[in-house]
C-alpha cells in the first residue's frame, strides 16, 4: 500500500490521462462542433476569399469545361460531344495560331528570358547608381501596356516611324516592321520584351544578391573569368529562380494576346501574328461561338498543365 496519496495519484497513468470530469470521450459531432467553434474566426475570415474564388475562379473554370462540350442554338443548350473540338481543329487558322504561339514563345524566351537575366547581372556588377538602374529597368512595367504599345506602333510605322528614320539616315533599306509577314512576330516580341522585362530583371537581381560573395572569391582564386563565374557560380546558385521564371514565362507567353492585338490588330499580315488566345477571343466575341472558344481554351489548358506537370516531375527527379 502506498504511504502517500500524492504519490499514488501522480503515479496512476490512467488518472493522469483521464481526469474525473473528462471521463467520457466526446463524440465525433461534438468534436467537430468544438473544432468549428475554436476556429470560427478563421472560418469567418476565409468565407470572403472562398466565395470570391468559387464565384470568379472555380465556377468559370467548371463552366468553361462544360461549354467545351455544349452548343447553344435558338436558346437551347445541347451536348455535342467532341464537335467543338473538331470545329476548332478544322479551322484553317488553328495550326497557324499554334505555330505563331510557339514561335512567339521561343522568341520571347530567347529574348525575354536571357535579356532580363543579363540585365540583372550587369546591374549587380554596378556598385553605384544601382537604385537608379533598377528604376530605369523597371520603368516600362509601370507604363500602361496600351501606352507602351502605341509607343512601339509609332517606332515601327513605315512612313514616319523612328526606326525607319534611323535606317534612312544610315542609307539602309526601310523595313515594313509590323507589315512584313516575316518581321511582324519578331517586332511584336521586341515590344513585349521591352514592356515586360523589368519585373523579371528585378527577380533575377534579388536572386543574384543572395549569392554569397565568397563563392565568387573562391572562383576567382581558381582563375575563373567572368563567363566561367557566371556558368559555375551564378547559374547554379540561381537555378531555382531561373527554373521558376522559365515556367512562369512559358505559361505567360503561351497566352500572349495584348501585344499582337494592339500592334497588328491581332491577326497581322496574312495571319502571321494570330495567336491561340486571339483565336479564342475571335470565337467568343466575334463569332459568338463560346463552345469553340471553350474547347480551344481547354486545349491550351491541357497543354500548359501537361507542361507544368512534366516540369515539376523533372524538377523532383533532378533534386533526387
Amino acid at each position, binding site marked *: 500500500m502506498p504511504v502517500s496519496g500524492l504519490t499514488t495519484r501522480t503515479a496512476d497513468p490512467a488518472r493522469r490521462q483521464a481526469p474525473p470530469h473528462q471521463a467520457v470521450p466526446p463524440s465525433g459531432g461534438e468534436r467537430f462542433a468544438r473544432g468549428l467553434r475554436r476556429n470560427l474566426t478563421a*472560418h469567418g*475570415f476565409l468565407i470572403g476569399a472562398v466565395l470570391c474564388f468559387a464565384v470568379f475562379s472555380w465556377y468559370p473554370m467548371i463552366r468553361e469545361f462544360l461549354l467545351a462540350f455544349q452548343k447553344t442554338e435558338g436558346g437551347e443548350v445541347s451536348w455535342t460531344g467532341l464537335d467543338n473540338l473538331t470545329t476548332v481543329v478544322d479551322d484553317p487558322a488553328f495550326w497557324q495560331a499554334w505555330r505563331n504561339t510557339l514561335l512567339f514563345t521561343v522568341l520571347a524566351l530567347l529574348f525575354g528570358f536571357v535579356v532580363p537575366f543579363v540585365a540583372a547581372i550587369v546591374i549587380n556588377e554596378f556598385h553605384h547608381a544601382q537604385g537608379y538602374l533598377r528604376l530605369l529597368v523597371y520603368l516600362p512595367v509601370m507604363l500602361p501596356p496600351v501606352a507602351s504599345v502605341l509607343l512601339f506602333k509609332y517606332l515601327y510605322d513605315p512612313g514616319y516611324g523612328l526606326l525607319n528614320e534611323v535606317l534612312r539616315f544610315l542609307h539602309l533599306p526601310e523595313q515594313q516592321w509590323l*507589315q512584313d509577314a516575316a518581321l511582324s512576330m519578331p517586332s511584336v516580341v521586341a515590344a513585349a520584351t521591352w514592356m515586360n522585362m523589368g519585373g523579371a530583371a528585378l527577380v533575377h537581381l534579388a536572386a543574384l544578391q543572395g549569392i554569397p560573395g565568397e563563392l565568387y572569391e573562391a572562383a576567382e582564386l581558381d582563375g575563373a573569368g567572368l563567363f566561367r563565374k557566371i556558368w559555375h557560380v551564378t547559374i547554379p546558385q540561381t537555378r531555382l529562380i531561373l527554373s521558376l521564371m522559365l515556367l512562369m514565362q512559358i505559361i505567360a507567353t503561351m497566352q500572349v494576346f495584348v501585344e499582337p492585338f494592339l500592334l497588328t490588330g491581332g*491577326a497581322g*499580315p496574312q495571319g502571321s501574328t494570330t495567336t491561340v488566345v486571339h483565336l479564342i477571343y475571335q470565337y467568343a466575341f466575334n463569332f459568338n461561338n463560346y463552345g469553340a472558344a471553350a474547347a480551344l481554351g481547354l486545349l491550351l489548358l491541357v497543354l500548359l498543365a501537361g507542361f507544368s506537370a512534366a516540369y515539376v516531375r523533372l524538377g523532383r527527379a533532378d533534386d533526387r
Partner: protein
Amino acid sequence: MRTARFRRARRSGAVAVVSALALTALAACGTSSSDNGNSGTSGSGSSGPAAPLDPEAEVTITIDCMPPAAKAAELKEWKEDVEAFNEIYPNVTIEGRSTPGQCLEPPRFTAMLKARSQPDVFYTYFTDLPQVLDNDGAEDITAYVNDRTVPLLKDIDPGVLGSLKHDGRLYGLPTSNYTMGLLINRKLFQQAGLDPDDPPRTWDEVRAAAKRIAGLGDGIAGFGEYSAANTGGWHFTAHVYSLGGDIVGAGGEKAAFNDEIGKQVARNLHAMRWEDGSMGKTQLLKWGDLQKQIATDKLGMFLAAPDDIAYMVQQLGAAYENFGMGPIPGGTYTLAGGNNYMIKKGISPDKIKAAIAWLNHKNLTVGKGQFDWARTKADNLPVGVPQPNFWTGESKKKDDAARLANATMPVANFRTFMDNPVPGKAEPPKAQEIYKVLDNVMSGILTDEDADIDRLLATAASQVDQVLADR
C-alpha cells in the same frame, strides 16, 4: 466566465463583420441585370398583341443607348422625347441606360446576350439577328407591330424591315440604315485638280484620282483600305459587291469570290498600293484609322457609310465642308446595313407594347424624335447627312424636305451619292468568320509586294468553304 463569454461575443462579432464585408464585396463585384419578370408592371396585355397599350397599365421599361452625359445635346433631346412620350403615356416609365463611348461593342454585346442581361429594349446591328436568335434573346414582335402601333409602317423601306425578319417573323424596329459609298476629302480633291462635286464612279477613275492625290506628297495617300480586325474582309466584300460579284454562292455552301471579279478587286488594290504608291505605307488599318487620316487631310478617299462624316466632325474636330460623298465605284451593288432595337424575350405583353410605342415615338415618326430636324439644328447637332434613309413614299418626301430646310452642312456635297442610289446587299452569312479569312487576302495584298493573288484567293476560298461547311 466573464472572459469566456466576452471572447465568444468578440468572436461572433468578428465573424459577423467578416461575413458582412464578404457579402458587401460580392455585392459590389456583381453586376445588375435586367430580370425577366414583370417588375413595375401590372396589367396583362389582355387586349391582345395587336391592340395598343392599355393606358391603365403601369409599365416600366429599361432601354440601352441613352446618350451619355458627355453628349449633352443628344441627352437633352432624349429627355425631351421621354417627357413628350409621357404626356401621351403617363403610365410608362422609361429607364434609359447609357454607355460611354461606342454604344454597342461586339464583345460586350455577346457577353450580355450570354448572361441574358440585356435591357427590355436593346440596341443591335442588323447583322446581329442570327446571334440574338441563337441566344433566344429577342421577342417575336410580328403580332404587335401594325399600322395602329406604328402608323408609318407602310413607308418603311421593306428591304430594311426584311433585315429584321427571320422566317417571316419580325424581331426588331429600325433606328438607322446605311449603304456604303465613296467618301472624299474635298480639299485634297481641289488641291489635286480634281472635281470634288464629281467623285470617281468607276474603280479605274478611283485609281487615277488616287494617284493624283498621292502626288501631292507630304505623306498623303490617295485611297485607303482596312486590312485588320475583320474590317479588311468587310471592305473586300464591299469591293466585290460593287462589281456585281458575291462572297458566298447562291446555295450558301461555297465561297464565290475566287473568280474574275475577286481577282480584279485584288489586282486593282495591289497595283494602287505597290505600282502607284497611292495607298500610303502604313497598313493593317482598322475602323477608326482611315477616319483619322481623312479628317487630318492625309487621305483622299475611302469606302464608308455616311455617318462616318458625323463621327469625324463630332469626335475628330473636322469640318463638314471638307467632305463629300459619291456612290460606291462600280455601282452594281453596295453593302447595306444599319441598326435597330429589339425587345427582350420573355418580358410581359404590356412591356412589349410600351417598348413599341416608345420606339415609334422616338425613331419612327416623321417630324418627331430623331426626325425632328428643326430641333436637331437648334441644338447645334448635324443635319443633312444622308442617313438614316429608310423612308419611302410620302414620308420620304416630308422627311427629305425637313432635312433640307434645316441642313447645317452643305448637303450638295452628298448630292452625287443621293442622286445615284445603288441597290443595297446584305452581308454574307457567317460574316465575321468570313471577314477574318478575307482579312488575310487584304493584308496579303497591301503588305506584300510579291503577293501571289491567285494563291491568296484560292487559300481564302478553301478556308471559307470550310467555315461554311461548319454551319
